[in-house]
C-alpha cells in the first residue's frame, strides 16, 4: 500500500470504526468497573477437597482459616484431633491434619488456641468438615488473595461441585460464614 498523507474516505471510516469500537467496549464496562477476584463462599462449601487438587498452584491458594470469635477454643478440638484420638496430644496419631498445619497453643484452662500455618496448609478441608460437623464451624476455607494469581477462569471454580466459587469485588475479597451453617453467627 502506498503511504498517503491525505486523509481519505477510508481513513474516515477507519477512524469512525476505531471510535465506535472503543466506545462500545467502554460501554460494555458499564457501571462495574472495579476489578474482581475469585473467592469461595464457605456457606456453600461442601468440603469436597477439590480446592486442594484443582488449583493451578501447588500447593493450592485455598487455605483453612480459623474465625476466632466463633471458635470454641475447645480442649477436645475435632478440627485438630483425630476423631478417636487417644490423647489430646500433638502426636501424628492424634492429629487430624495431614500436613500438621494446625497449631495448638494453651491459653488457660480449659481453652486452647488454634492457628493455621498457611505455608503447610493445602486446603483439603478435612478440619473444616470436622469443625462443621462437631464444632462451631469456626474453621473454613478461604482463597488466599495474596497467593492466588486470579486466573480469568478459575480452575477450582470450574470444578467446584457446589457452585461455591464466584468473582467478588477486589475491595471485599473474603466471604464470611453466616446463617445456618455456623451455630454462632
Amino acid at each position: 500500500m502506498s503511504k498517503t498523507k491525505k486523509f481519505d474516505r477510508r481513513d474516515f471510516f477507519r477512524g469512525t470504526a476505531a471510535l465506535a469500537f472503543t466506545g462500545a467496549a467502554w460501554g460494555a464496562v458499564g457501571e462495574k468497573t472495579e476489578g474482581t477476584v475469585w473467592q469461595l463462599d464457605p456457606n456453600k462449601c461442601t468440603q469436597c477437597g477439590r480446592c486442594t487438587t484443582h488449583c493451578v498452584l501447588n500447593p493450592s491458594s485455598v487455605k483453612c482459616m480459623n474465625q476466632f470469635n466463633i471458635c470454641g477454643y475447645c480442649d477436645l478440638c475435632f478440627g485438630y484431633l483425630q476423631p478417636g484420638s487417644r490423647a489430646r496430644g500433638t502426636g501424628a496419631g492424634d492429629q487430624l491434619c495431614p500436613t500438621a498445619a494446625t497449631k495448638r497453643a494453651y491459653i488457660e484452662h480449659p481453652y486452647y488456641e488454634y492457628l493455621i500455618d498457611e505455608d503447610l496448609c493445602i486446603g483439603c478441608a478435612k478440619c473444616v468438615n470436622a469443625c462443621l460437623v462437631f464444632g462451631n464451624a469456626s474453621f473454613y476455607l478461604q482463597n488466599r488473595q495474596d497467593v492466588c494469581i486470579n486466573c480469568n477462569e478459575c480452575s477450582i471454580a470450574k470444578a467446584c461441585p457446589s457452585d461455591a466459587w464466584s468473582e467478588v469485588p477486589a475491595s471485599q475479597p473474603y466471604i464470611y460464614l453466616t446463617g445456618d451453617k455456623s451455630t454462632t453467627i
Partner: protein
Amino acid sequence: MKEPVRRANHPWMVGLSVAAIGAAYFFLLGNSDFPEPGPNLTYDIETYAKLDEVETRYEETGLIVPDLEEPEALAIGPGGRLYVAGLNAVAIFGEDDTEIARFNTNGAAKCIAVAQDGTVFLGFSKHVEVVGKDGAVQAVWPDIDPRAYLTSIAVLEDDVYVADAGNRVVYRFDREGSLLARIGEANPAEDIPGIEVPSPYLDLALNDEGDLWVVNPGQLGLERYRSDGSIVTSWYKPSVVKLEGFSGCCNPTHIAFSNDGKLITSEKGLVRIKVYDVTSGEFEELVAGSKLFPREQSLKDLVVDAGNRILVLDPRKNAIRIFERKEDDHGSTS
C-alpha cells in the same frame, strides 16, 4: 513455464498430523486429569456414623408440625400438654397432638418451661419472661448481662433454673426473678470442675426426684448439683469410637428424663438419641441413630411426654418427630 519454489510438504500428511495433534490437544484439555482427593485428605465420619446402625427397640411413629415460625423449644406442661415455643408465639398441643391453644410472645424464645400451675417461663436470649396460664405476660425479668445466651430453663416448685451458655453457668432464681445461686462455676475447693461450653448448647433437666442434672458439654458428661450449687456427682463419657460415649467436642446437647427415670440424650454432630442410666452413666440403648437426622444441624429440643414418647424438634423439618418404644419388639410392623 517453470519457476523455482519450495514445494509444500505432503499436504495430506501435514493436514492429518495437525488435525491429530489438534484433536489430542482438545481431548487432553477436555479431560483434565486432576486427581480426586483421597482418603487421607477427606474427613471420613461414616466409620463412626455406622456405629449407630443397630437394631433399636424404638420406632418413629409420627410427626407434629406446629404452625409456628422457627419453632425453637419444647416443654411438657400440666396434663401432659406439649408447649412449643417459636417466633412470637407459643402453641399448646393436646393429647391427640392437635393444637388446642396458643398465645403470642414478643420475640424468639430459646427455651421454655411450664410450672405445675400452668405458669410458663420463657427464656429469651438474655432474659426470662413469665407468662400466666391465660397467656398474659406476668413479668419480664431484666436482662442478665450482655454475654448471656440462655439455652435451657426448668421449674421446680419455687425455683427456676436457667442455663446460660454465654456465661457458662446455671442460675437458680426464685419465681420473682431474684438470683439465689450460681451453679456450675469452676471451684477447685469444692471439686467443681466448671462447665465448659464450647458451643451454644447447655441443657439441664430435673428428674422426678427433683435432682438437678446439668450437662457439661465440653467434658461430654453430666453433673448433678444441689440447689445451693454444690456438686453431688458427675460422670463423663467422651468417645467417638463407641456408641456408649458422647461424640464430638461438646455433647450431649439436650437431655430429658423419661417417665421411668431414664436419661434421654440427644447429640449434635452425629445426631443420636440415646438412653442412659442417669446415676451410673451407663449407656442403655439407642433410640434413633444418626441416619435419621441431618448432620451439621443439631436437634433444637428434646422432651419426653406423659405417654413416654420421645419428642424431638427437628430443625430441618421445623417439626416435632415422635419416637416410641415398639409395642412388639420382634414382630413385623409393615
